[in-house]
């Protein structure tokens, strides 16, 4: 985001009004020859500026941004309703390789164990089928709403989805020669009824764990060329 607005709207109004009151009080104190009056007036003026410009130098210094709430996921799943998951992993490969592999959606089930299949409908739209309990299937069609080659893929579900969700994956070069930080954001609105229990079954009590395992497998595939397994190895009998 290139704008230097880093204060949310409600907070800006509060700053402006509070600042005005503080400045007025300070000016009155100054008139009464109180030395603290100047400080109150200065602080009040700063708050008015913060409210008017939406920029807080203090927030800037510590890296806080309360205005940046309008990214792709939250735009489409307003408020605190959905389940929010954010996971990150560093993969020892260039961003372009990782982007290219991820963008091939039909290959995603290789490392996202819970996804049964993905079918690419056209360049932007894809149809997803996820395995639920007892052979139940959960389906949706997703469209890409934001895409920057080698950097970002953002998507959301279209009308008629079993689960309303939105998400993004960002590929950010890691410091030095450490490869790429892959950041996944996913938000979904858990539905009620049978589909809801299927979703709960897939993601369990900790949806972030499911996403983390998917990212781990993606990393294994991209770094090691295969995912380690013990499934199918011999073991002794339990008696």
């Amino acid at each position, binding site marked *: 985001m290139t704008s230097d607005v880093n204060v949310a709207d409600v907070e800006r109004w509060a700053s402006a009004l509070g600042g005005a009151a503080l400045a007025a009080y300070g000016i009155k104190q100054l008139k009464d020859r109180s030395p603290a009056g100047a400080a109150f007036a200065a602080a009040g003026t700063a708050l008015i500026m913060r409210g008017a410009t939406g920029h807080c130098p203090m927030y800037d210094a510590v890296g806080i941004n309360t205005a940046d709430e309008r990214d792709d996921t939250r735009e489409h799943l307003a408020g605190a309703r959905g389940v929010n998951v954010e996971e990150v992993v560093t993969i*020892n490969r260039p961003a372009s390789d990782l982007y290219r592999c991820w963008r091939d959606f039909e290959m995603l089930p290789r490392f996202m164990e819970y996804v049964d299949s993905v079918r690419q409908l056209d360049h932007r739209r894809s149809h997803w089928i996820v395995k639920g309990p007892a052979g139940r299937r959960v389906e949706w069609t997703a469209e890409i709403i934001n895409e920057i080659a080698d950097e970002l893929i953002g998507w959301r579900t279209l009308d008629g989805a079993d689960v309303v969700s939105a998400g993004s994956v960002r590929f950010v070069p890691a410091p030095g020669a450490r490869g790429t930080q892959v950041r996944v954001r996913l938000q979904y609105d858990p539905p009620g009824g049978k589909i809801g229990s299927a979703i709960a079954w897939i993601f369990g009590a900790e949806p972030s764990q499911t996403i983390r395992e998917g990212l781990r497998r993606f990393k294994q595939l991209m770094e*090691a060329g*295969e*995912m*380690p397994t013990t499934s199918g*190895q*011999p*073991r002794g*009998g339990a008696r």
Partner: protein
Amino acid sequence: MKALVWHGTNDVRVERVPDPEILNGRDAIVKITSTAICGSDLHLLDGVIPTMKEGDILGHEFMGEVVEVGRHNTALKVGDRVVVPFTIACGHCFFCQKQLWSLCDNSNPNAWMVEKRYGFSCAGLFGYSHMMGGYAGGQAEYARVPFADVGPIKIPDGISDEQVLFLSDIFPTGYMAAENCAITPADTIAVWGCGPVGQFAIKSAYLLGAERVIAIDGVPARLRMAAEQGGADVINFEHEDVFDRLKEMTGGMGPDACIDAVGLEAHGATLDAYYDQIKAATFRATDRPNALRQAIHCCRKGGIVSIPGVYGGFLDKIPFGAAFGKGLTFKMGQTHMMRYMKPLLDLVQAGAIDPSFVITHRVPLDRAAEAYKTFRDDKDHCIKVVLKPQGGATVH
């Protein structure tokens, strides 16, 4: 095939299990000609390592002949004679590329289990609990080796199994323990525990230029081996005060570096050792670190404590004040095997060391269960057991 299977605490059995198969492109299947029981396997027998399951195949020190390779494995071919390292590494992640092989990011299928306990996961290991990957081990006739294009080292003909088998774990482990001591001429190194890793730590400390090695144990046969084979001065903690002896032997300074080759199931003759036994027996502590405590206490100011002994959980009453006050450095962790296998094979080939000196027992695989108990209970005579899955072992 036949394999040694864990059924529970104090219950291991040799039984028939299915043969292993290639599961991934970089795998290989090895027909095992020699395999050993490690001191750390006794922690499994004693049931102190979490996440074991009935049916698990044990063993992480093995070698043999490649009989099958996966389609993406271009490093090995059928017929190659190899020693397999106990740690499994992908070769491509940040950690492998930094030569921190035992910290590989990609070789543990159950990484999440370790993350819950340790924050981040370490590499997968053969036959050493599900938390460490759940891989079937090598106390068997055959084993599947994942990422077999990275770990196994080829062994030329004309050198016996027994001379190279311990490149799979204990020789590199003892060597890294000594290397971690940053030895300079005139250094005195004290080694707690004269089991096989301790024996190799002693030899390695001398190979790396130590002036003197002092070995500490309570078992006469082990101390004898440390003195006769390793050339160490010895302290029997059953009869002597370790701190007083070390101080006296080092002219009042203390050892420059202390190696704890004992780990989480230490036995000791001091008050804190009994305290640990009671706490662990009543499930109020997981590890019994009295060798580590003593190593910290005895180490000279500004010295190094090197820890090849295995720890798994939470340690009680560690004298951290002493460690801080004396400005100690700690070095530890599973061995970064692939750093050491080739250089140490070269040392063996050059005749600088013959690792077979630690072997006291040679047993057919069929008698492995019995050998575990011999190793644990008959400590006076048993230091290292080698199993012969393809027959040919003479019973000791």
